[in-house]
Structures are given as structure tokens and as C-alpha cells.
């Protein structure tokens, strides 16, 4: 990259530097994505092959009827998420979304604790008609069909 190099060579050197950096960034990104992406689980996935404790994952399912309790501090909630095949207990400290109720779908972000409880750091519930976590779209399909059938009758 000095003046002794011919013009053609400097352009080549610059192109090589840029390519090396970009390919490096790409490889780094690919490696990090494999390790850092947070995978989506339903309770039966967790029963079959639980993620290692502490790894960031997301858990989606239905909040079981009668499972929702609030601790004495008023901000810690416990509930059970099920998908009809398996059940996972969840604990969450925070302000729950408005449409988070028993029997509704939920996506919990967090990680598995050592004791098999899911430690949620964030809850995503259906917000309104237009704003819904993607994972809930499929889950509520059955419900949606039922509602449509009801309305049609």
C-alpha cells in the first residue's frame, strides 16, 4: 500500500482487505448466530430435549386454567404453560401484558432454571388484532376457526 505499488495493485489490496473483513464478519456472524440465537420451544420440545439451563430460549404455549398465582410481593407470577402433551412451570417477575389471562396463548422469553422451572424475563401476549407474536398466530388458528364457526352459525 505504498507509492511503489502500481495503481492496479493498490486497488487489489483494498479489495482484498475489504473482502477479508467482510468474510470475517460473515463467518463471525454465522458462528455467533448458531450459538446466540434464541430458539423457540413448545412444552413437548422441552420435555423431549430440554435446552441447557441459562441458555436464552423462548417458550410458547397456552396458559393452563387455574394455574396462575401471584406471590405475596404482588409482582411475581407463577403459571403453567402447556401444549396438550407436556407442561412447563413458569415464573415471571414484572408487569404482565394486558391480554395475558388463563387459557390464552403466551410466548415467554427467558431460560430454563436448574429445577425445571422456566425463568421468564419477558412475556409476549396477543396485544391486539394487528399486533401478535408470530408464534401465537398458528397457535390461535384453531381458536380463530372456532370463533369464525361460532359467528357463522
Amino acid at each position, binding site marked *: 500500500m505504498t507509492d511503489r505499488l502500481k495503481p492496479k495493485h493498490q486497488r487489489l489490496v483494498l479489495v482484498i482487505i475489504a473482502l477479508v473483513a467482510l468474510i470475517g464478519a460473515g463467518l463471525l456472524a454465522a458462528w455467533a448466530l448458531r450459538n446466540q440465537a434464541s430458539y423457540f420451544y413448545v412444552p413437548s420440545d422441552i420435555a423431549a430435549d430440554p435446552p441447557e439451563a441459562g441458555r436464552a430460549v423462548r417458550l410458547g404455549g397456552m396458559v393452563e386454567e387455574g394455574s396462575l398465582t401471584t406471590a405475596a410481593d*404482588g409482582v411475581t407470577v407463577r403459571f403453567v404453560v402447556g401444549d396438550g402433551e407436556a407442561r412447563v412451570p413458569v415464573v415471571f417477575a414484572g408487569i404482565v401484558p394486558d391480554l395475558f389471562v388463563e387459557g390464552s396463548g403466551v410466548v415467554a422469553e427467558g431460560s430454563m432454571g436448574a429445577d425445571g422451572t422456566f425463568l421468564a424475563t419477558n412475556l409476549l401476549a396477543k396485544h391486539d388484532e394487528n399486533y401478535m407474536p408470530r408464534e401465537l398466530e398458528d397457535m390461535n388458528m384453531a381458536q380463530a376457526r372456532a370463533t369464525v364457526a361460532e359467528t357463522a352459525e
Partner: protein
Amino acid sequence: MIAELGLAALWLAAALSALQLLAAIAGVRAQGSAIAALVRPAAAVQALLCAIAFLALLYVFASTDLSVALVAANSHSDKPLIFKLAGAWGNHEGSMLLWVSVMALAGGLIAIVERRLPERTMLATLGAQSFVSLGFYAFLLFSSNPFERLDPAPLQGNGLNPLLQDIGLAFHPPTLYFGYVGLSVAFSFAVGALVTRQVTPEFARVMRPWVLGAWIFLTLGITAGSFWAYYELGWGGWWFWDPVENASLMPWLAATALLHSASVLAARDALRTWTIMLGVVAFSMSMIGTFLVRSGILTSVHAFAVDPERGSFILALLAIYIGGALVLFALRANTVAEGERFALLSREGALVVNNVALSSILGIVLLGTLYPLLTEAFDLRVSVGPPYFNPVGAMFFLPMLVVLAIGPLLRWRRDSFARVRWQVLAVLGLAGVVLLAVWLVTQIKLLPLLGIALAAAVALGSLLPLRGRDLGRLPLPVWGMVISHFGIAVALFGMAADSAFQEERLVAAGVGETVAVGPWQARVTAIVPTAGPNWTAMEAQMAFAYDGGAPRLAAPQARQFWSPPQETSEVALITRWNGQLYVAVGNEVENERWQLRLWWKPFVTFIWYGGVLIALGGVLALIGRVAGDLRRRAAVRLIEERRADEANAGFPLARDRA
């Protein structure tokens, strides 16, 4: 009637755009073709027609004309006027009309004011601009007609998403769109220069104010969006690495790189093909952003309607424009002659590092944003968040900051380390001292620690170019650079300090109880119901004392809107010079206690101050460049007049004498 007028104006504008494209092609192919004279007027009239269409849309929203489907679906007669107007672009069709209007405005402006480039390059540029516009006119008219009528008209509209009923809606989307679409001008200039193979410093000087303008708007739009999400969502965060945020960050990264490489091209005639490439990439990122946000492929408050047809339409436009530009680039890049050479240790060398690092970060953000979409094709659902973006991005961002602190001290072409030795040592020494001092006192995590140390180094490094200069005579663009770089340091300090030192409390409290968070004591004095024009709320009236001082009053609310039904959190913010207290109220728990979430966020406000400083630097540079250009034009005119006078008076021409 007004709606039909708007629609007619749009069709007419689309037809003019087609005419502009054909005339430009004819003009580029045959020098001096008469039809080429139509290109500039066509672009100017298009801007006028789009302005009419946009005003028509504002009118139907302001008057809540419910026979227009878009108004019925998104507005409500009870809404305050400012949200009726802002609601015009708070939906898919309206926002696409805004996009097209801004694009026509930009095209009209370059057609009217830009006369420095060879006419053939300008024709190619305006042709490219009309080619891009044409696609978006088609998208608007065939799949997203904002003026569609509804028969019979409903009695009342659906209203606007309450999250959007905020003054932020009036500013955030138009600012971002000015930025996104402003980059289309850079794209058109790049394509125009490729077509005529005239990649010159003059080309960079002509393109630079446009990139600068778009970049200022993007910077402001991102800053405003971040602050809006911060106080509107009630989650206490200012950046979530949400795909929608990334969609605005990616064009900004590309535009920042383009700004710097255009400077090299303008000043030193180097990095020719690279600048062209970035011009193509920057607008491609705008379009990818629009695709991600508007196609419904992502779910967020920004994805208004999930309509696969629209998604495929935008995807087709993307493929045509990005693919076409890249093919043209591949065919022509080799024929662009090599620019000037430079040594590794030089201003150009530092700017190459800046460009490579910014492009790498862009790649990292792009991969992280698209990865969930790719895996979904294999039925694997993942989400990518801060654990990926923060460390991987930092690996390129932090070294880039070191170069940012030193680069502006270097001379163009070649420099010697001995000349800048003491300044470099001062910058690195300050970073080392701050790093050690902060680590010894607080033992915070690595990334915030590096962030604070580098913020100090960048702050010092950004001011060093002022040393030994006569501040009164410093050109505005240099002030712009200094202030923008200093803004980076300020914003970085805010980000690092907030993530390192923020304190959070989550409690359930009743009237009379006191909650401590950081240096604050917060007391609940009352919890009362309250109401607004289209909502009701529970309001927690609270008194906040900092470090035992006099209490300040604030009242966070949990709001319940009824059209459409939705709850939002109206947080209380108490700002001091050294940070912000952030309070959100949640749901009621038994025995009249309410959930409260409090954050003490030291220096968080510096993030947005920094963003504003960065944009302010851009504004100064833009004023400096435009003023310089006007002076140059005036000087050229004066010289020409003198020459004409001399020739008339029979004197020899000035250049013959020389």
C-alpha cells in the same frame, strides 16, 4: 371529490414518470435529442402532482371523510386533529404515498437545481430516478390505493392504534422517510455515473449534499424513534435490536459509510467504484428496510397489514432495482478508471478502515435480521437479540472508534507517525486511564467499560482537530465533523453508562408507601382514575426525592383506550442532568396495591443528546457545502461576465493574458 383529485394527480404523476424515463433514455442514447428537454420539467411537475395527492390525503383525514376506505379503517372523528393528520401516514397506504411524494420531491429538486454535472450524466440520473419512482407508483396504484372509496360509508372509523396516538407519530415517520427516500437520489446518481462512466470528484461533490441531507434525517429519525419507543412502550429500553429498528439502522450505516467515501472521492479522487457501490447499497438497504417493515413478514406495530400480495410486490421491486443496479455495477465497474493512490497511514487510509468496519457491521446486522426469516423456511423458529448483536457488532464498532479518534488528525495522501505521535498517545493514554479508573472503582462488565473508555478517547480525539486552528475561520464542514464525532462520544457514553449503572425496582405499592431505587425515594400520594378525549386511565400520583432533596411530582398512568380497545403505559420521566428516573404503573394486585416499575438510568439522556449533536454536525456541514457551492457559482458567473465585458471592450481575454 378531493379523493378522486388526489388519485388523478397520482396517475398523472405516474404517466409523467414513464415519459421522463423514455425521454431520458432517448437523451442518453442520442446526444442533443430534442425530447431530452422534457426530462427536467417532467420531474418538476411530478413533484407538484405528488404534493397535490398528499395534500388531498391530508384533507380527507382532517375532515374524517369515512367514504374513503383508508380513513374508515384508520381514523375516528373523536381523535384530536394532530393525530388525524399524522394518522394519514400511520398506515400502509398513506405511508407509501408519503414515500412516493418524498421521492418525487427529491427528483423534482435535483431536476431544478442541479446543473454542475455533464448533461448526459444528469439525464441518466433523472432516468434512473424515474425508473425507481415508476415501480413505487405501480405499487401504490395497483396494490395500495390510498384513495379507495367505501360504499356505503360506515358511521364511524376504526380509530388509530393507541401506541401511535402520540406526538412522535407526527415526526418520526416523515423524518425516516425523508432519509430513506433521500438515499434514492444517491442511488440514481450512482446509476447515472455508471451509465456514462463519469465517476469524478465533481460527481461526489454533487451527490454529497443529498447523502448528507438523507443522513441527517435518518439520524434524527432513528434518535426520535429510539426515544419514542423508550417512553411509549414502558419497557425502559431504548434499543431492542428489533428487526424494525435494524431496518432503519442499516441504511444509516450504509449512508454513513457513503458520506465518508464520498468525501475521499470529492477531496482526493480515490475510492471511485467503492463509492458507487455504497450508493447502490445504501438505497438497497432503504428498500430492504421497507420490505421488512411493510410486507407483513415481521409482526410489529409497524407492519400495518399482512397482505402476501404486497409483500411479493415489494420483493419483486427489490429484485429489479437491487439486482439491476448490481448487474450494471458488475458490467461497468471494471471500466471506471483507478483513482489516486494513498499511503496506509493517511486520512484516506483511516476512512477506508471506517468504511470496511461500517460495512462489516452492516453485514452483521443484516445477517442477524434475516436469519430468523431464513430458518423459518426450514421450520425452525428462532429469534436473534442482544446476545448476538451486542458482542459481534462491538468487535467491529469499538476498533472503528479508535480509528475515528485518530483519523481526523491525519493528513491526506500520506502522513508520518512521528508527526501525530503525541496526539495519538494522548488519545490512547486517556482511554487507558479511564478504563483503569472506572474498572477499579466500579468493576462493571467488559462492553460498557470499553464503551466508557472509548467515549472519553473519541471525545478528546474529536476535539483535537481544532487545536492550533483559528476557530473563527474554521470552515463549517470541519465544525460539522468535530460536532458529529463528539456526538458519537456523547451517545456512546450514555449507552455505556445506562447499561452499566442502571438500577431497577419492581414492587407492588399502595398509597403512602415509599419505594427506593438508586438515589431516589418515591412516595405514592394517591392513585386515582382519570380520563382523556379517547381514553380512561389509572393514575399514580407520586413524589420523588433525589438524595433527600426537595420532592418533585409526577404521575405515571396505565391508559385504557376504547377505539380500538387497548391498554398503554404512560410513563413518568424525571430528568436530571445526570440521568432519568423512569416510572411505569402496571396492574392492580389485591388490597389496593398497584404494581410499579422504577428505573434509575444514569446519563441515559446523553444517548439522545448525542444523536441530536450528530445530526447537528451534519446540518453544519450541509450548510457549509451548499454555501460553498453557491459562492462558487457566483464566482463563475462573475468571471464569465467580466470575460464578456472584456471581449466587448476589445481587451484580450483574461486566460490569453495568463
